């Protein structure tokens, strides 16, 4: 057993650290330090920079342009990225549709779509949820009818993060309503500029626009945008659920949040109860340590080429709970300074002024991608055989 990074890994870390120091844009760094989320331009500028370096699609196999890193290197990269004040990259292209394409796509599809994802030029969004198909995704109703060389898509998606930014959507649609629910679903790539698509914003309780409703009215999608075969959509969706878990727990960003909180607390005046605050932070750090080492186990297993072990099953549940706890602690420890919502001049430490927006935003993290309750249902069945 050995819990230290090897000399090679330490050298790798140093390389990444230096690069981040030199390359994370100042405005992005400031944005993260305030606890804010970057807008489209700032986010994409950063992702293009990574793309140019070949470090955007770090999980991809080398043959598709991945850097050929080990899971440990990817984990180190994520830690350094977060501690340098850069946000996580948008998952839809890099972590979701990319792996689907190189796994299930045709040669033409790979050639056509992978380069834009790799370079950060092309932005994607995910069309899964529908108003009546949330936890029960398989009951989705958006139809795609085959007409010669295209599908005609009608229906509605909801909770579509960054649909207003995206060039393309990957989408689950129903191509057959005569078979068992799961079997009639297909995986389709849709150009967001196609006529018949309407994107309506949904404002989140952090006051920002991340989410959208997307309406499809007789939207023509070329048949060559079907990934795999008709009816394969559910299989592809499930494939994504078990893909790459080495950073799903959010350890790097949670660590960064705790660091921001500790720095803010250190600057509090003498009449503030630092002792009590320190105990609360310590409890969170201890929880993070348990998550971190569980995550390390998954990383190490990945590097040995093993499938994800049982240790990885709780990474998302524990990770999201901890993100919420850290965020709640930041709001509550900020006391009165957490109440201002849109002040221009900082009041006390600005970290606290912005904390409640993030706290609001993070209520969603135990809901999206399969709520934690749904995850537990699945684990009870798959893992415990109940």
């Amino acid at each position, binding site marked *: 057993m050995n819990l230290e990074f090897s000399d090679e890994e330490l050298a790798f870390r140093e390389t990444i650290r230096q690069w981040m120091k030199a390359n994370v844009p100042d405005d992005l760094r400031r944005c993260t330090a305030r606890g804010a989320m970057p807008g489209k331009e700032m986010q994409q500028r950063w992702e293009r920079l990574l793309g140019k370096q070949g470090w955007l699609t770090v999980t991809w196999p080398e043959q598709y342009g991945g850097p050929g890193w080990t899971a440990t290197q990817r984990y180190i990269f994520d830690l350094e990225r977060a501690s340098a004040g850069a946000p996580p990259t948008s998952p839809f292209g890099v972590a979701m549709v990319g792996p689907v394409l190189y796994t299930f796509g045709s040669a033409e599809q790979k050639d056509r779509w992978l380069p834009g994802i790799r370079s950060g030029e092309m932005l994607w969004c995910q069309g899964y949820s529908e108003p009546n198909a949330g*936890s029960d995704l398989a009951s989705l109703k958006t139809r795609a009818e085959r007409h010669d060389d295209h599908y005609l898509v009608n229906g509605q998606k909801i909770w579509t993060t960054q649909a207003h930014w995206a060039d393309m959507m990957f989408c689950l649609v129903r191509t057959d309503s005569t078979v068992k629910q799961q079997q009639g679903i297909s995986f389709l790539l849709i150009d967001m500029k196609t006529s018949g698509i309407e994107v309506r914003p949904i404002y989140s309780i952090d006051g920002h626009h991340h*989410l959208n409703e997307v309406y499809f009215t007789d939207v023509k999608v070329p048949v060559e945008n079907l990934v795999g075969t008709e009816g394969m959509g559910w299989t592809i969706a499930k494939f994504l659920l078990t893909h790459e878990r080495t950073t799903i727990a959010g350890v790097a960003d949670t660590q960064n949040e705790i660091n921001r909180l500790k720095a803010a607390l250190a600057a509090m005046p003498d009449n503030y109860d630092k002792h009590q605050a320190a105990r609360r932070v310590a409890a969170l750090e201890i929880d993070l340590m348990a998550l971190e080492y569980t995550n390390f186990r998954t990383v190490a297993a990945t590097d040995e080429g093993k499938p994800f072990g049982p240790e990885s099953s709780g990474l998302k549940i524990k990770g999201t709970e901890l993100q919420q706890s850290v965020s709640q602690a930041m709001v509550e420890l900020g006391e009165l300074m957490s109440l*201002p919502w849109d002040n221009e001049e900082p009041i006390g430490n600005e970290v606290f002024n912005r904390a409640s927006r993030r706290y*609001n935003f993070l*209520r969603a993290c135990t809901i999206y991608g399969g709520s934690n*309750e749904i995850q*537990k249902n699945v684990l009870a069945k798959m893992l415990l055989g109940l």
Partner: protein
Amino acid sequence: MDFKLSENTTIIADTARRYLKDNYSFDVYRSQLQEADHLHAARWQAMLELGWFGLPFPESCGGYGGNLVDVAAIVREAGAALCLDPFVDLVVSPGKLLEYINTPESLAILEDVIAGQARVACGLYDRHAGYQVTRPSLRLNGDRLSGQKHVVPDGGCAETVLVSAMNGDELLILALPVEQCQIERYRLLDGGRAASLTLDDLEVSDAMILCRGEVARQAVSGWFDYLCALDCARMYGAASQVFQHTLEYARTRKQFGKAIGSFQVIQHYLVDMFIDLQQLESMLLMVLVKAESETVSERARATSAAKAYYASQAVRIAQQGIQIHGGVGVTEELNIGHYFRLITHCSLSHGSRDYHVSRFIEAEAAVDEQV
């Protein structure tokens, strides 16, 4: 022991509920969120005419002699309706402080507040003093004041602001014309408006000083307990709505071919919320009576217990309400997220849980000494 509301209180609550139903709605709330100033002339006049401005104050001050239970009946309904009209911030809060100061000058201002003729806000918090309202960080230098007061609720539309400052070891409360302050306006977590006031070498005349020393300390301390109790009332109104809406949603929202309320885990979540709501109601009734108690330590013990309890349990209800609603719960379009913000806000205004647990321990030690 008797937990029944008086007939009078019941009428006040019913009136408030009916008034808000007729004059306020989630749509009104959402458009009010966008306003720079939350003083809506017609509703302000209506509240004045309903007698709410005089309700919190003794008849000797020109009020109608309502107690905290009566006032809380309105605040609770306002919480349930997400109403942002600054009844507490520009009437109850400054009014109670002026009443407790109880000098001819303060009572004269109070009279104007009750009559709807003065817009007075309270600026008792500043950047470095946390929740310790009897020891503000703003200091008088000779007859000059320089510094800031923060998170002054609806301070942007007041004419006068009641401000606390230290003069040596002595607490002062001053009534300052807002026009002599520099103002930065912003919104708060609950959607309310607030201001930071910057005092730049402001010359303090004797007439501005309403009271000092022990009188000031007792007035601020009584005001703090009163406001804490109203925070609880507002949170209760909001939390009970979260529960009702969530229960209704669980009954009607279908997933996997059945109502989500038929899943045992959701059922247990809802039962926990229901039981907690009952306990919150008990704590509210308790604090509404005890927060006006004569004994300072008994009063502090009760309000700090209630506020600490609300800060964990009302917040928990709001979080669970969102979780059970799923995606729709985190959008601006549904009221649930707004209740969540309101409750989070109130759990931190006038003392966080950590602060009140400490204050509870101190107050209890004082109670024990008396026994």
